[in-house]
């Protein structure tokens, strides 16, 4: 970079403004591309944004902590957004009451599948213990997964990355799996996306329909609850047996 420009950059990167604004700008750009491509699942805006931001940070030699100093304001909104999921959920109350038992069973099946298959496959392929611990709650929304892993001695920041990757994989590939299985019910589609791919799956489900989004949000919250209870139990069991 040219000398004066570099000086301005150094000055700006010391305040939260620069990286907060860049995060929003890059996301808007990624979303614009996504929309122009007719919401093609492969051009997931989260994945695009992350790639562009990482490239930018590496090019400018900015450490992640400096970036997060600004981006944390966006990150913080995950909390209120999680609470806000109660609103679309309430709108689906009637359908929810009707499908209570199928929801509980599907949730349990999904949460156990997510946990066991993630750890099982990674273990079979020789991943380290720390990676196994950090990958287990990958289908759960970031704040929950990070909280669980932190308590059990894993790497919360690695978990965050794995959780986001999972969300992207679910949002990108979930549609094809559901189409192949000929799942047409929007409630079922949303619920499966939310169980497997938390908030990013939910964001994707909202693009299919309001109903899919609400069920996805429900699944995301419930899957977080179930995993928060199941996973520490599982770790305790494994440690007691070995």
């Amino acid at each position, binding site marked *: 970079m040219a000398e004066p420009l570099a000086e301005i950059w150094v000055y700006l990167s010391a305040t939260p403004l620069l990286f907060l604004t860049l*995060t929003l700008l890059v996301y808007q750009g990624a979303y614009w591309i996504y929309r122009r491509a007719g919401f093609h699942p492969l051009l997931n*805006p*989260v994945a695009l*944004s*992350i790639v562009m*931001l990482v490239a930018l940070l590496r090019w400018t030699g900015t450490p992640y902590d400096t970036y*997060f100093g600004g*981006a944390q304001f*966006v*990150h913080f909104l*995950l*909390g*209120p*957004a*999680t*609470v*806000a999921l*109660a*609103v679309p959920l*309430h709108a689906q109350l009637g359908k929810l009451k009707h*499908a209570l038992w*199928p929801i509980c*069973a*599907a949730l349990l*099946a*999904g949460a156990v599948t*997510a946990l066991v*298959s*993630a750890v099982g*496959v*990674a273990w079979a*392929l020789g*991943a*380290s213990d720390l990676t196994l611990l950090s*990958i287990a709650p*990958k289908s759960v929304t*970031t704040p929950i997964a990070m909280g669980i892993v932190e308590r059990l001695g894993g*790497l919360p*920041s*690695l978990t965050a*990355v794995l959780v986001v*990757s*999972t969300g992207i994989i*679910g949002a990108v590939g*979930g549609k094809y*799996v559901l189409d192949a*299985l000929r799942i047409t*019910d929007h409630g*079922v589609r949303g*619920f*499966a996306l939310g*169980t*497997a791919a938390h*908030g990013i799956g*939910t964001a994707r489900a*909202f693009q299919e329909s309001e109903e899919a989004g609400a069920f996805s949000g429900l699944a995301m919250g419930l899957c*977080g*609850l179930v995993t*928060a209870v199941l996973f*520490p139990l599982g770790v305790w069991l494994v440690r007691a047996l070995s």
Partner: protein
Amino acid sequence: MIAALTVLLVYQLVGEVVVVALRLPVPGPVVGMALLFVTLIARGGVAEDLRQTATGLLRHLSLLFVPAGVGVMAHLSRLTHEWLPITISLVLSTLATVAVTAIVMRALLARRPPGQ
């Protein structure tokens, strides 16, 4: 919008307090969501202001995951070292979870009479 945002933050705060006080293994916002859900059922409706703010926040839910995702750059060495087990595990497990959840739910829904 400010009133609605305040409501969301208050529920989150109450959720955090409940989690700490009762030592629940769940994060505060999830408890906050459950409490707000119960409140909405008890009230029998959602205020227009809250509905709009919630919809606005959730429409761009995926933006909120970007800062955590950029954290990938802090773990590049572990990820490049173990990329194969991690990638295969994430892809297989995520798609299997979508399939299992959808199949179980559809099968159970089909067994009950249609209609509300």
